[in-house]
């Protein structure tokens, strides 16, 4: 049994939901679910409305080919249905790659899916190849599902490396749908790395292609913008193709992005003069815009106390940004992922470079209704006396689920982490230089909305 008996309104979906979001984001790739009939629809719904109206994309939503395991398959096995579904999918769906994702029921009844997929591949003729990824919800959550799908790509789809390609890097650890800013963030990370003269696989943007993804095994470095998810995939690539890996945080704003660029440059031994010139130009552009806030900041006093709530990637990235660039104070940062206690200290350590009292500030809490208790422990409620220190002016930077918490405190709120059902997200991102400016704009637009 995991340390978590139950979860209140989990801010994640299951492995199948995560794998599905990942596969749907790959170019010309179509998922085929070997799962109960509702798994695709239910998790698509979560992804759609939880990720800023993600959109079903090419073949998502209720277009996803599915075996729809029913009572008959539970009793007699589902391989006949899978074989038929694969054959007919190849007949009518226009794709270059199929990823068969297995759900809970398929894995419990023990269907030998691997052999059916192998048989399909052996006889597929001109039809697209199929690979297999586990999406069993009892094995992991949607973040685990990202790695499950990406591992399948690295194990079963990429070319055996012909040679290490100087200047080619893969970007991992930005999870489609679950990291709600994934599209914009990947574009910005791609822009920055390309600006450094690198060739980049970001897997999920319009600039990515399956041909390029096949060369991912030849990369010089796997950059993982996350301390946890994405790391497993990079480890697989290291094991299979000896690709080294570098785990960083998600850089938001000029300071974090400068650190990120310098770390990459050092690791890849890039020409320092070129890197410096690139950074100088980026920073000049950034601060020329960012500093226009100065009048308002100085006249209105735009410093805030803040509670930051998000997954292990976002909680860190946004807390760092508001502390180091906006000069805010964060008495409470909530990491909403399920993290076993043995792994927590290392994740808290990541906050130490900008939070003196990281141990007191950072909490691991999956249950939304308990967040206010954590704040009350750190910020005493009014005691009835004339003088007390109010939690004001203050801001909650969290998900849609944290809106009522902010309303209860009478403070501002912006949805920046999953689920975001009250904003539409297209190509907006918060990573990098561009993202830092967008986040600043969004935060203060909310803070000043009453004017």
């Amino acid at each position: 049994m995991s340390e978590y008996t139950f979860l209140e309104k989990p801010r994640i979906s299951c492995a199948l939901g995560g794998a599905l979001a990942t596969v749907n984001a790959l170019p010309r790739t179509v998922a085929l679910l070997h799962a109960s009939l509702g798994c695709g629809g239910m998790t698509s719904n979560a992804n759609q409305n939880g990720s800023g109206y993600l959109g079903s994309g090419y073949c998502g939503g209720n277009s996803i080919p599915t075996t729809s395991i029913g009572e008959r398959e539970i009793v007699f096995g589902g391989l006949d249905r899978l074989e038929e579904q694969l054959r007919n999918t190849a007949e009518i769906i226009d794709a270059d790659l199929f990823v068969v994702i297995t759900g809970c029921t398929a894995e419990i009844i023990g269907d030998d899916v691997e052999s059916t997929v192998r048989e399909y591949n052996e006889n597929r003729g001109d039809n697209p190849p199929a690979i297999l990824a586990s999406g069993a919800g009892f094995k992991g959550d949607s973040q685990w599902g990202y790695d499950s799908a990406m591992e399948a790509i690295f194990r079963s789809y990429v070319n055996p490396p012909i040679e290490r390609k100087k200047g080619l890097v893969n970007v991992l650890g930005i999870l489609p749908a679950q990291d709600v800013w994934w599209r914009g963030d990947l574009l910005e990370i791609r822009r920055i790395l390309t600006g450094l003269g690198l060739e980049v696989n970001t897997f999920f943007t319009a600039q990515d292609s399956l041909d390029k993804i096949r060369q991912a095994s030849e990369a010089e470095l796997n950059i993982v913008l996350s301390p946890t998810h994405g790391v497993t995939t990079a480890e697989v690539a290291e094991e299979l193709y000896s690709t080294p890996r570098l785990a960083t945080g998600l850089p938001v704003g000029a300071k974090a992005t400068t650190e990120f660029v310098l770390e990459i440059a050092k690791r890849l031994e890039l020409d320092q003069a070129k890197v410096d010139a690139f950074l100088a130009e980026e920073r000049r552009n950034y601060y020329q815009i960012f500093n226009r806030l100065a009048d308002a900041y100085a006249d209105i006093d735009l410093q805030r106390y803040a509670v930051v709530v998000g997954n292990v990637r976002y909680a860190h990235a946004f807390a760092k940004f508001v502390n180091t660039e906006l000069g805010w104070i964060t008495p409470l940062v909530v990491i909403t992922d399920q993290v076993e206690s043995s792994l927590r200290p290392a994740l808290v350590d990541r906050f130490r470079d900008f939070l003196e009292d990281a141990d007191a500030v950072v909490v691991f809490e999956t249950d939304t209704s308990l967040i206010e208790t954590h704040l009350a422990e750190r910020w005493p409620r009014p005691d009835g006396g004339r003088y007390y220190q109010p939690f004001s002016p203050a801001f909650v930077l969290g998900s849609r689920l944290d809106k009522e918490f902010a309303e209860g405190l009478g403070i501002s709120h912006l949805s920046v982490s999953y689920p975001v059902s009250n904003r539409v997200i297209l190509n907006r991102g918060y990573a990098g230089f561009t993202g830092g400016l967008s986040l600043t704009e969004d935060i203060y637009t909310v803070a000043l909305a009453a004017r």
Partner: protein
Amino acid sequence: MNYLDKNVPPTREERLKACNTFGGTACGLVSSSKHGCLGSNDRGFLQSTGCQLGLTMAIAGTIPEAVIIFHGPVGCGSSQLSQAGLSKLNQQSRGNTVKITREWFSTNLSESEVVNGGVEKLEATIREVDRRHRPKVIWIASTCVPGVIGDDVDAVVQKVQHEVSAKVMPLHCAGFKTRIVATAYDVVYHAILRYLIDDPELNRELVFQDEVERFAYEEKRKRTVNLLNVGSMSRVDEDELVRLLKALNLEVNILPCFAPPDRFVRAKDAALCVSICATHDDYFVSHLKEIWNVPYILSTIPIGTDHIRKWLFEIADFFGIRDQAERLVAAEEAELKKALEPLKQALKGKRVYVSAGEIRAGAQAILFQNDLEMELIGVRAHHYDKYGDVLFQDLPDDLPVNVATSQPFEQVNLVKRANPDIYVGHVGGNVWSAKLGIPVLPIFGPLNNYLGYKGIFEIANRLARVLKNPSYYRTLGETEALPYKESWYQADPFKYIRQAPIPAETDPIDADIAA
């Protein structure tokens, strides 16, 4: 019918021989239905849909002061995340402000529970939910994994019930059990009928001040109808139906959606149960009649003047007030007709494709044809059973009909060929027609008004608006690709359907059934 001695209600396949697979004409569908030929139809290619678990939430998820526990791996409840703001709006519009309405939990089953069983986790979760939130009701939505590994959820409920203050009610809704997701409604009603409606705590006898008050209550009771709402209708729809029923001097008790738990108890006192959708309510009203002797009306939905009239007359006949109803209908229809005239200019002759649940699809199609004089070119129904016959037999015999829960591959094949001026459909399926460049009107949503006379006007009004500037859809059609090969659009849309031969009209029904 009485299934209340069973832990788990039958599926719609078992109980009604419902099907979700058919391709042909309206006449062929009704004929197949009457001959009982639909039940074994299936497909060789399938696309994902929701499951009955999701649809149980259309009722269970709306009950105020209830908390839901999804007993399963972490993803099974995740589509609830999409409901956060919407659910709040819907509750508030019904005057419910209690915050715990929106609480839900997952028992987060992992590999070790798959091996050792998940009941311990479920028990712990029920106790903690009760302690933390003190809800009136705790729903246990039991999913595929406990269904396959054999967790005895009813035993857990029995064991834990007297340790907690909430009423604990199991929903047996493992997705793999049925392809007819409407089974979900029976699952929720089953729990309400078995666990809630006779709950002694909620059933305490009313205390009257004196005989006069008792008499007044009794008189009111004789004029009270249970109006059964559905999760996808808006508060405005409810107001419209209440307005019509009140015009007949009736009292209205609205349930099941958004109804506080004690309202179900009062449902037994009503003079009549009025359903707007047999797909939603037949299980509930049949049991209420069988066990508590409350008569019901189930035959149609108040969409379009023809069926509003039918619906109102049936209610009026029950109370012996047909004259009143005829006067009401005449006045309403006259007023509506005048209001529709200018809108009809824009709609008359426009070619429309309709997709929805069987009852709404049928009624909506008739509305477009008869009230708005549009040209009906195709109808899709999510599933089909005998309750659809009364509507589909009124459609043109040769009208193309597809029965499919979603299945956008059949949809785009049909719709691309038919090239309608507008596609009217259900949430989730609209986008696939939109990507063909066809303007879409989503009418069946919890914020839209589509019932009663006001609903007709509202739909006509919105249709005219959508048709006035379809540029968004046209651009979408020009710039977006659907995932099908070109050859699919040339193929028979029903290529992957395996269905029983459609009996000719002349086939004797009795002989067929006897065989």
